[in-house]
């Protein structure tokens, strides 16, 4: 299993990294003692738990990989076909990140519109005109619902213009 395995290794590696830095952080916070736990005791225990069982999973996987070299990937019920569309996945992930990091600096309508266009045009291959219509409708509708009806103070415009509000 060439591709899914790589993804699994990356995730497990990241988890181990998180656990290790959790233990380092917990130590600098101070573990305290059993009678008087310090602020680092619980983060420490959690990190150790994460470390031990990620390693456990890793070992089990190493064994199964050496024994059965190529198990069918993603054959679980309902998960069939996942991993078949990396281009679309990438478009969605990029769109989400774009929206998140421009939500405040561009204001919500612009950030959301950009993200929707990326998802629709790059991800779903929707025609440009159709994508524009969907985006416009979605922005207007969510604005009316959240900002209008429910008074959520969404950032509307970039900060330099925000003196008006």
């Amino acid at each position, binding site marked *: 299993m060439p591709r899914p395995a790589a993804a699994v290794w990356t995730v497990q590696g990241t988890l181990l990294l998180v656990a290790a830095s959790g233990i380092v952080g917990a130590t600098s916070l101070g573990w305290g003692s059993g009678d008087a736990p310090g602020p680092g005791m619980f983060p420490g225990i959690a990190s150790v738990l994460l470390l031990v069982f990620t390693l456990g999973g890793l070992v089990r996987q190493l064994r199964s990989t050496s024994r059965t070299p190529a198990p069918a990937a993603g054959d679980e019920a309902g998960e069939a076909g996942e991993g078949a569309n990396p281009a679309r996945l990438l478009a969605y992930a990029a769109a989400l990140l774009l929206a998140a990091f421009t939500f405040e600096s561009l204001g919500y309508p612009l950030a959301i519109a950009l993200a929707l266009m990326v998802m629709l045009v790059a991800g779903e291959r929707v025609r440009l005109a159709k994508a524009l219509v969907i985006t416009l409708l979605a922005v207007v509708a969510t604005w009316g619902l959240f*900002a*209008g*009806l*429910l*008074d959520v*103070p969404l950032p509307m415009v970039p900060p330099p213009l925000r*003196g*008006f*509000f």
Partner: protein
Amino acid sequence: MLRHTALLLLATLAAAAPSAQAADAPYPTKPIRIISPFDPGGTSDLSTRVIADIAKDILKVPVIVENRPGAGGTVGIGQVAKLPPDGYTLVQFSSSPIVIRPLVANVPYDPTKDLTYVGRYLVSHSPLMVRADSPWKTLAELVKYAEANPGKVRWAAGAPQGAAHLSTEALFRSANVKTTFVPTGGGAEAMLQLGGGQIEAASATDFAGPMAEGKVRLLAESGPVRIATAPNVQTYKELGYPLSLAVYLGLAGPAGLPPNVVKTWDDTLKQVMEHPRFKEFLKAQNASPYYANSADLTRDVKAEVGSLKDTLQQMGMAKK
């Protein structure tokens, strides 16, 4: 709600560049926003909503309350401190993120420089209580017991590192007795533990119900103002202990708020103080009126920040 936002939008479109707002421009001409830096539902948040509701009739513009909770109020206050001082965004505050938190944690503003204090309106009470069936009739008796039994008096306060916690901790430290402080998530939880007999004493604002039922005995008030419904209970300060920190509420804006804005809100706050609904609110929350205008409040805050720092250092309670 829709109407407010529509007004807000119209007003924004109609407004000229920000610089056009000269100091003597008429105020207010568009909706005003008050940021409540706490979770919805507490005394702080509710008081803001009551004031906004009364103020909108006095000022003749919508007054909208928005919650920006986080880090004991410091997130919301920090955000408002960075906004242009046009008087259209104010922040409601409690004394804790202004006077206390800067001394024990990092906050994103300087309370003596980054804010214009508009006015103060309420002080809440947080008396030190024991169970009515406990042997301690006075604060002195409790302190004496704690002296004879080091660490045996377990007590809780509304919020860790809050005014009641610091005042009571200072009390025990100045009396040179060792006690056990049990941190809780809030006054309700502290009262629950007192009621369940898990702790010996509690200092919390949720005293009215249990007091009325005769379940608790009030030994002393941790704040500087005596309680209207229990006028015989003395404050820590009156009893000769070093700290009686107040939990009070007020309004502020970014530094450099125009004088006419401050004046308008000062007049509004005065009217709010006399409004029957506000008086009812104070009664329901077991709080007392605690009015101060902009100048007095600014002076008080400066003095409190300075003196508290000294006291905490003397008591060995300041942040290292």
